[in-house]
């Protein structure tokens, strides 16, 4: 699946999961989930759950997040999220 399609999917899923949030004006691969979108870590878990429902398959979100932690990442970019989805969708 192309990155463009995945971004569109992500946008759809996020809008449905967090309908009372407005995305920033400019969103791209470097947009950070926590710092720019204002999400909390629990909401990332919610997002993972909704993405699984959207694609109808289990996604290894747990190891993905653990990997982020293990490399000391303090945020997650949409680009990284899309790359993860490219691997598993």
């Amino acid at each position, binding site marked *: *699946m192309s990155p463009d399609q995945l971004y569109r999917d992500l946008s759809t899923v996020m809008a449905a999961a967090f309908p*009372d*949030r*407005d*995305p*920033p*004006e400019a969103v791209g*691969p*470097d947009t950070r989930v*926590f*710092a*720019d*979108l*204002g999400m*909390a*870590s*629990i*909401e990332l*878990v*919610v997002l*993972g*759950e909704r993405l*699984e429902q959207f694609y109808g398959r*289990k*996604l*290894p*979100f*747990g*190891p*993905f*997040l*653990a*990997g982020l*932690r*293990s*490399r*000391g990442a303090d945020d997650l970019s949409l*680009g*990284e999220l899309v*790359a*993860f989805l*490219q*691997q*598993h969708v």
Partner: protein
Amino acid sequence: MPTTLTDPAAPPAPPASGWDTEVFVLRGDDRADLRGRALALADRVERQPGVTLSEVAAGLAADLAPGGSRLGAVSGSAADLAKKLRRTADRLADPNCKQIRDAAGVYFFDQPLYAAPGSLALLFPGEGAQYPGMLADLCGVFPEVEETFAWCDQLAAEAGRPSLRAVLHPAPEDRAAAEAELRKLGPSIFGVLVADQAVIRVLWNLHLPVGAVAGHSAGEIAALLASGAMGAEKVLGPRLADTMDLMQRQEEQAGGPDVTLLAVGAGRAAVEEVAAGGVVVAMDNCPHQCVAVGPTPAVAAVEAALLARGLVCERLPFRRPYHTPLFEPWMGPFRDLFAPVPFERPHTPVYSCSTGARFPDDPDAVRDLAVNHWVSPVEFARMIETMYADGVRLFVEAGPRGNLSAFVEDVLRGRPFAALPANVARKSGPTQINHLVAQLAAHHVPLNLGHLYAGRVASWTAAVPAAATEIEVASGPPQSDPIRAGGAAGTAAVQAALADHLAVMERFLDVQREVMTAFLSGRAGPAELPPELLAFSDFDCPPPEPLCLVGDVVRHDPGREIVFRRPLDEREDLYADDHTLGGRGVSRADPGQNGLPVLPMTFSLEAMAEAATLLAPGKVVTAVRDVRLYRWLPFDPDPTTLEVRAAVTAVDPAAGTVEVRANVRDLGNTFLKDAADKPACEAVVVLADRYPDPPDPLPFRLTDEAPCRSTVEDLRRNMFHGPLFQMLRTLDRVGREGIQGTLEVQPRDRWFRSNPDPAVVIDPVLVDAAMHLLGAWHLEQPDWTGRILLPIGMKALEFFGPPPPVGSRCVVRGHNEEETARQARHGLEVFGPDGRLWYRLTSAGYWRFYLPFGHVNFFGPKDEYYLSRRLADAEAAVTGRCHFLEPPVDLTQPVLRAAGARVTMTPAEQAAFNGWAGTDAELTDWFFGRMLAKDAVRAAWAARHGEAVFPADIETEAVNGRVVCRPRGGPKAEPFPPVAVAAAKGKVAAFAAFADRVGVALVPVPKGGDEAEARAAAAELAVADAGGGKLRVRTARHKDVVVATAASEVDP
């Protein structure tokens, strides 16, 4: 501290700087009017780009009248503000837009949530909310915050103690030590109470109308104080501090039960479905987070079951079994503490996190519930539901971090509410206060906005009439009537209500002060080592031999703490070249080229053991426990700096033991530019006057016992360790439960370039080498899936004597404790030459990496193995080779990817890799594209010439948009064949053939799509890629893609 209540004094002169943003609250009579005002303000700041934003914001605040249609915006520049306002105006023009909640800082609500004081509640966070540096940047903008923390300094100075503020606001180099200190019982609870107090003072000055309060875990103390239920400060204050000290000592000395706390990214039901062996849900925070607690092995089983379901789990870095019956051993002093406290009927409704309902009015019932909260599960989700049912719509988190707001978001998702943190770690303090104010104002909560500008905006005092500041206060229950400033009979009622409200708040602060004063005055610092334990202080004692990893001592408070640094330098640290992630001997052109050198975990342990030895000279290290590994410490081409920090945390003069908590980090490397705040490894080192007597060996009955099939050479080929670490001599017998072999202790003269006789505490190379036996156990297993193992932590390493002398032959037994899909857990015993147990490793956890082991021996010889797989059906030439790869996710992690680059790339390619200026995703594409090109070329070469070529001996470069491969280190019998590379859907294919022109294409086959169409498209693309003309073409389906290759000529 504040002086008066009904007539608050002008605050002390605030600092001139510190506000990185301003909050702009606009009001219109209706939505259309609001839109017009937004556009007008945008015009104004655009016409006057040099306008002082604080003046603009203060002017808007001064003009703000109750009601209407409101907009809150947070911005730090005129241009940004104008942009936001224009975008907002566009949104407001859309009648379908019901609200705006933009994390960038724009808030509008068509249906504001504030209805009466009872609709707004404060939530107080407890332990877990603290973080080093919390609220530090508010000290410069709100005098009351600075006063609160300065008061910590003052109390500590008066008591002759280190200030708690030094822990709450540490210097950058002390941050990790502060984090460790803040995890302790006393500092964690009191640290949050200080922060809660600072925040509530800001909210108080904003005149927030509070209708109810509640707290999470330890935050319930703050809630009870705020509600007036606990008013006996004279009784409670000093004794609470004493009690915390007592509990802290209990914890440090006894250690408590061996329990683990596991945060789970799911609700209670998910845990309860798999819970067994005493694991219980201690905190039900929200549908996507709960905390399970239980005996460590049982928690491990629950964790494994949850991970297998794909749930997110994380072990918490402390072991106090709060909110379970297991906390009962701590409760004795706590019950004694509360027994004489005269509880009172709360003046503000307060909710219990034990029952999820309002606290009863009966004082004794309040006491029982409050005390037993510590052994009762936290029912935060249920409590929020109750508060919502009671009419609370706005939840303001009055403390650090913002965790509770996220919980509330999750509990109430889909319903009308707002959860607003006053502080979050990811935003500056002033900016988050502005976001809070913007949202409150947009929800029509009446506020004293003047507090944001008093003292710093010259026009504020003159420009703002008193009535312009909205005031609405409440200290009664939610159903009490609102009192609005500016109402017909407002003034007197407002003044009275305000006085009442402020009196309540002041009383709360007084109680907080009592408690804090007692705590800080009486708080014991880390125990100083008794003189009799300081053997080194004896002048007759010869000076100790310099330990091998101790470098420059940055700070040393003997008997308390030490910090030292040393370079991590490949030229000096020769052992690093024998510990290379990715493998060894990866080039014929440069036989010295190895993988990425990383600091062995055992060297981190040695460094911490050496630091501990310096703090307790004359003692021996008997154990290293609770080892946690967080990240790699790579060696860079240029030296980096290793820093070791250690502090004494417990002393038992009777037993002669000392415990030292230590951690290791580098101060930056290629992957992590500023790593000063990120420990790589931490542990507790235990020292004693002598080694303990060795216990009996663990049972070692092997089911299905057999002689090992693998040889030591097999093992070496499958590990990334060089000769220094190769101590295993035999692999003897293996069974389901473990494996036995022998090792021979090797000399230490080649660890360091400048030190041929290094002094060690635990012999890190021997400890590392012994663990290789565990690798051999995995090598014996029929299924190698997930058999790349890297350590993540260990429960304990126990030593029963000094390291065996060089040349000793030792029996080693590896125990298989537990194996899950993602982790393996092992134990190990090493017996000295006398047959007595020398060393025991317990519960060593390894992360399992899923690389395609069957096709590529990641750590093995790189000329014989391929990361990618051959697709023979897709090869359009007899001399051609087509290779295909779906890069393993583990290999896309930066450090493993860098290790991959070190073993497959030439120096020029590595320079390009290390200096990559594009995005991380582009680097991944580049790396795997080049790797596939090499795989195809060397496969074609091997087929034609019978010669295996290392990937690192092929130089690639881009020529006219195509990858061209050339031999490294001089020409070969003929040039390498041309190669083509294609990528799609995260997969990569490459085709090389001894032909004039080659092409390759990779086309996805849509679900339910026509494979024939995909084949035709792929063939067409491959021909185009090769430049067209007369070509031979072949296509092959592989999983969900079609791969096509094209070649102009075949030359068998």
